[in-house]
């Protein structure tokens, strides 16, 4: 076992443990903070896959923005009820069964695939080349259309979310 494997195992264990805490923590705020730890662990996993760009983007977008957004929403929707009482639906056993079965099925199917045990070797230094990515994103043979559609999607999300959230007439409702 080499150093990289140790780093991977540590990061994977930390993220899986904190992911388990995310779905089981009583307090929403704790769940949100565990989520941050999971996301950091996934960023380390990206590093071991030699994708510096996405490791950094993971921290920038997920930890820096999405986690903050989630924490703000937790603060916006907190009630006294949230700190006690069950946070889990009655049917959680069925949900656990579905998730466990799905895991078994996925791993079972993957194990049949011959590439499953491939060793990932270290890529050459310019493997996650941003230059190539940038060119591919705007080239018509590449991802020009998804690139523009991403912008449209972001704007749609922005407009939609603002329309929903900034509703100035909601005071009449109970």
């Amino acid at each position: 076992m080499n150093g990289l494997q140790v780093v991977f195992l540590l990061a994977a264990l930390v993220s899986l443990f904190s992911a388990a805490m995310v779905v089981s923590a009583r307090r929403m705020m704790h769940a949100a903070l565990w989520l941050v730890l999971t996301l950091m662990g996934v960023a380390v996993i990206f590093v071991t896959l030699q994708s510096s760009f996405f490791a950094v983007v993971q921290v920038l977008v997920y930890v820096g923005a999405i986690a903050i957004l989630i924490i703000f929403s937790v603060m916006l929707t907190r009630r006294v009820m949230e700190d006690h009482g069950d946070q889990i639906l009655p049917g959680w056993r069925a949900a656990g069964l579905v998730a466990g079965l799905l895991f078994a099925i996925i791993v079972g199917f993957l194990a049949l695939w011959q590439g499953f045990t491939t060793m990932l070797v270290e890529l050459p230094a310019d493997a996650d080349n941003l230059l190539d990515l940038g060119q591919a994103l705007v080239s018509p043979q590449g991802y020009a259309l998804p690139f523009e559609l991403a912008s449209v999607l972001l704007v749609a999300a922005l407009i939609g979310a603002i329309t929903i959230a900034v509703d100035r007439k909601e005071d009449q409702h109970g």
Partner: protein
Amino acid sequence: MDFLRDPFGFVIQEYTGWLGGLGLPAGWVDIIAKLTGALVLATGAMLFVVFLIWYERKLIGRIQDRFGPNRVGPWGIFQPVADMLKIFTKEYITPIGADKFAYNLAPILAVAAVLLLWSVLPLSVTVVGTDLNVGLLFLVAVGGLGEMSYILAGWGSNNKYALLGAFRLVAQLISYEVPLVLSALVPVMLAGTLSVNGIVQAQESVWFIVAAPAAALIFFIASIAEIGRSPFDLIEAESELVAGYNIEYSGLKFGMFFVAEFLHAFTVSMIFATVFLGGWQGPGAAEIPVLGFVYLMLKTFVVYFVTILFRGTLPRFRIDQMMNLNWKVLTPLSLALIMAMAIVGGLTRELPVFWQVIAFLLVNLLLLGATDQLMRLSQSRKTKSNLPMQPLRKVLTTSTKHGAGE
């Protein structure tokens, strides 16, 4: 490589050579060398804060026609040391009901997030912590980690004021991160790389502040807002929030937030000097690396001096003014700037570098002038219609029946 021309590089080379001679496995030599480098750099940065605190207090004192610290040691230079000794022996008071883990992690994370920025900054030609291919993005992302420490501090303290202060601070930080990230796109476009060292090397002929003064200005203002200092120090609004997110902290835990703030102020100046003022570039820096370090420090101190000048002379913004400045001036300006720079750069691609830089400069100045005119126009329209000044409606909204917002 001789000692006089590049003392740091010389020491590093000697040290790694000595480590290699010890007969350890190659992987361990690498790790130990990197650990030493990190330890030296982090310790140096932490100790440097002592000097920064003295420098800043002295300067602020001069601006306010005072002496500043002048009792302990010559020119009061040992004043921060005395303060530090005092704060070391202060009791930690943990408030009842605090979330212990979050409460204690927050000051550590605040300092760590700032220290980590130093790992990718190139100090001279030979002393580069690490030349990450996404260095600039790393700087922005790790700078954003500090927000998490404020949330932890505010939420972990079990105090309404701390929580309100923390959320207000985070709202400010994330708002100003928008123009920060957008204006960081401009040097990336000009340099064609995200690596910080690559950006420095691309400024060999012309500094980016010359080619893109508007981007530099936006980056600078957003940086000052990011460190939460005057005129953007709303978190310290004593009259409204007592002291903001760190109200429940005492002793060195409180001190750590201050260490983080001072170090962040200096680091941000260094990032600005690196990205827009050419970093270690200067006459003779490539041949004599130690000169590059001197140049970088000089530039950084000039930028740092300007931030202190801001702090000493400008009054604090009101929170709505601050948000308006960000969302209605800086963000639209940076969006317009990127589009204009992209188009102008694409059109003038065939021209020699000199004329291209002139074109960039003109676009920048034009946009800055237009922004200035627009701001004046909206200002005069406001005064002409003789509206009373907008009252600061409910800056602090506590829990109301219908949620909040109105």
